[in-house]
């Protein structure tokens, strides 16, 4: 126990020191983790042991990341991406494999060359997605293309796992390479194996779609947050286990579960619950990659390994540039696309392990290649930094063209609370083509509104992490519709502190609540019942036979004057006596102003123009 805690402690401290430092230097978090790994690894301070086991465990961070990526991708969007997934991804994997196989075949038998080609065609989902997300480039053309290729690669791992053992030319080290914890799929006849695999995928989809939502709804009703977190984790781990059992990539299972839930109201809640686990696991994963760099081996074969790394990056880069040209990715986006995917990936570690066990490749070939892959992964974040530097200097000239074109759909608005007030605000904005992200904490309410086709998400908007995953960092405006003044205050203060750029429009229950919101510096405060009270008053006047236009004007006058006296009342609100006298004074003025038949501003309309004769 102590040993475990100590190890854990070392990882955490290393991350806590290295990542902020790396970020400060503009290097991104991934590089920070990798460097931390080298420092605490066997070739640095030698503070940690059993790196491989840790790497294996924390690989699960990649699974969680794919779940989160899935959550961001609605099925409809995934369908839109199908051409680029198959086209870009397919050609990247096939071409890179062919080129690398071709070159390796000069030195090695074709079976070994093919295995190396397949393994090295893969890129690092973990590093690339983490970096793109950090830089907010996931939604760009390059980001989408990169993602398509990575997704195809994750899928391609599955047939690779099946093909590689068939390439064995050496005696295999272990007899059983597919030992599963749950049951041994290979005991089944082949057609049943296929059916089971297919069944498992369908099961994940069906459970996610039909059982997932009601389950989360029930859990949400309990209001116990950690149970929700537990259920979310169980879902991710469960779908991964199921995929493992049928010999598929666990990342694929998690990804599918994510995609299925992307349409659900729990999207943002799930995102913010899983996010910290993913971050922590991935961080430790990157540290263990850093720690696994075998410097003795590298220094002994320094030229060979550096040559391999450089060759790997160069070959993959060339293939990517070529593909980018063929698929007509614009030149600006193409350079990011090619740089992003030029490294080797974490699946290479897994697959090289497999080649060792099944006797496909000799250890003497594997070791320098693993080091080369690790180095290429280490260089990847540096290449992003370099690309940014170059892009920024060329961007400075190219930028002015497509600025200023802000479309209504681009306004990012978060509506917090979707009760009786929020519903109408939401409908109003939606019908004007402004699509807000709507958050509400009442799961009954959410499911009813969803049935009406309004995109509402379940979650407590006063939680910082949920605000974050609802996109507060990029949002322009926050609409607070809570009737609960304390919750509204909490949210407004939270927003002001963490997202100072965010404009706020807020609802206040009554005058007292408006004062409380004024206390914390909010402006654009609207009293919940004020406008409807005046509308009812206006209608009442009309029913009494007062001209519509006059009733309308009286309402406007009252509204204007009442809003005008708010700041003065606010100042005096703590001194009861002067508050009351001030209120009475204002009210008397208002009464004078509005007295039916004599009211000045209406008289003005009546005699709008007294074009009388001067001598009359």
């Amino acid at each position: 126990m102590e040993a475990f805690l100590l190890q854990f402690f070392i990882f955490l401290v290393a991350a806590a020191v290295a990542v902020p430092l790396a970020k400060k230097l503009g290097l991104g978090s991934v590089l920070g983790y990798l460097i931390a790994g080298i420092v605490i690894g066997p070739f640095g301070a030698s503070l940690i042991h059993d790196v491989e086991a840790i790497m294996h465990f924390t690989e699960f961070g990649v699974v969680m990341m794919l779940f989160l990526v899935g959550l961001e991708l609605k099925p409809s969007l995934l369908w839109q991406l199908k051409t680029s997934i198959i086209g870009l991804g397919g050609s990247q994997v096939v071409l890179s494999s062919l080129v690398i196989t071709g070159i390796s075949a000069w030195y090695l038998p074709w079976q070994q060359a093919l295995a190396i080609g397949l393994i090295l065609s893969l890129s690092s989902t973990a590093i690339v997605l983490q970096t793109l997300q950090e830089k907010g480039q996931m939604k760009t053309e390059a980001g989408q293309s990169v993602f398509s290729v990575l997704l195809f690669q994750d899928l391609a791992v599955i047939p690779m796992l099946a093909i590689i053992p068939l390439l064995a030319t050496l005696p295999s080290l272990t007899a059983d390479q597919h030992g599963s914890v749950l049951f041994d799929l290979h005991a089944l006849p082949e057609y049943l194996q296929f059916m089971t695999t297919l069944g498992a995928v369908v099961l994940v989809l069906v459970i996610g779609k039909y059982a997932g939502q009601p389950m989360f709804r029930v859990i949400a009703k309990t209001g116990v947050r950690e149970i929700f977190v537990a259920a979310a984790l169980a879902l991710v781990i469960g779908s991964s286990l199921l995929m493992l059992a049928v010999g598929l990539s666990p990342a694929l299972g998690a990804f599918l579960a994510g995609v299925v839930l992307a349409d659900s109201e729990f999207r943002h809640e799930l995102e913010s619950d899983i996010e910290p686990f993913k971050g922590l696991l991935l961080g430790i994963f990157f540290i263990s990659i850093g720690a696994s760099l075998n410097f003795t081996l590298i220094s002994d074969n320094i030229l060979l390994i550096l040559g391999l790394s450089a060759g790997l990056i160069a070959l993959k880069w060339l293939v990517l540039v070529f593909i980018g040209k063929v698929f007509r990715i614009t030149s600006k986006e193409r350079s990011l696309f090619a740089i992003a995917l030029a490294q080797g990936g974490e699946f290479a570690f897994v697959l090289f392990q497999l080649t060792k066990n099944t006797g496909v490749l000799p250890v003497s070939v594997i070791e320098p290649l693993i080091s080369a892959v690790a180095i290429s992964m280490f260089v990847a974040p540096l290449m992003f930094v370099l690309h940014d530097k170059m892009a920024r200097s060329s961007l400075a000239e190219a930028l002015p063209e497509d600025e200023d074109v802000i479309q209504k759909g681009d306004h990012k608005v978060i509506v917090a609370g979707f009760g009786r007030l929020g519903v109408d605000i939401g409908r109003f904005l939606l019908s004007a083509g402004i699509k807000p992200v709507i958050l509400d904490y009442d799961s009954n309410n959410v499911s009813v509104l969803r049935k009406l086709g309004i995109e509402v998400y379940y979650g407590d908007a006063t939680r910082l992490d949920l605000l974050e995953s609802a996109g507060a960092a990029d949002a322009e405006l926050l609409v607070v519709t809570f009737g609960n003044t304390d919750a509204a205050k909490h949210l407004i203060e939270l927003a002001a502190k963490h997202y100072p750029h965010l404009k706020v429009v807020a609802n206040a229950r009554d005058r007292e609540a408006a004062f409380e919101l004024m206390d914390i510096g909010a402006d654009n405060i609207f009293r919940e019942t004020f406008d409807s009270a005046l509308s009812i008053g206006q209608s009442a006047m009309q029913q009494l036979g007062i001209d519509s236009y006059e009733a309308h004007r009286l309402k406007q006058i009252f509204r204007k004057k009442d809003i005008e006296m708010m700041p003065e009342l606010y100042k005096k609100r703590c001194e009861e006596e002067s508050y009351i006298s001030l209120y009475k004074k204002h009210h008397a003025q208002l009464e004078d102003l509005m007295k039916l038949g004599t009211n000045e501003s209406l008289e003005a309309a009546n005699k709008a123009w007294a074009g009388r004769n001067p001598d009359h």
Partner: protein
Amino acid sequence: MKKILINFAHPAKSRSSVNKTLRKAVEGVEGVTVNDLYQAYPDFMIDIEREKQLCEEHDVIIFQHPLYWYSTPSIVKEWFDLVLEHDWAYGSKGNALKDKLFFQVISAGGDGASYQKDGYNEFSLKELSAPFRATAKLCKLVWLPPFAITGVHGGLPTAEILRHGESYRRTIIALRDERVDIEQAKLLELLNADLNQLIGSE
């Protein structure tokens, strides 16, 4: 029988005895529709389709209003701005208003003498109706001189107001029954300058 639309515009009508009386004189007459603009659109949100349809359904379009700044109350301008659309009211395909009769019924504070070239206001009411006249030409309407009641601010005696109401009613009915010589009417200074000449004996 012609159908007549009276677009009535007074922001404080309950306090205008002249306009109240005039309106009462024609309200309920067969073939006459009174459309109270300030009542229907207190917030100036004019229902363009409704207004267009009303125009299409009638053969005579009248704006009845007090004279504000030698012109109309502001909602009438809003009405012109929004309702008279291109390709409906004007333009090569805009024939919706073609050949309909079009004039103002004005109540003015100053007396008749002040609305003359050498009077205090220097322009006659017929001249001040020029924007309506120009609009009529563009929209292929047939413009007529305004029907005007002057000297309102001097405080007209009730009997005179009632008399004006009666002439208004007679004019409207004559227009409805097509008993008015339109070419003759165009030449008048005011539509109600000489009623007997205009309508003849009934």
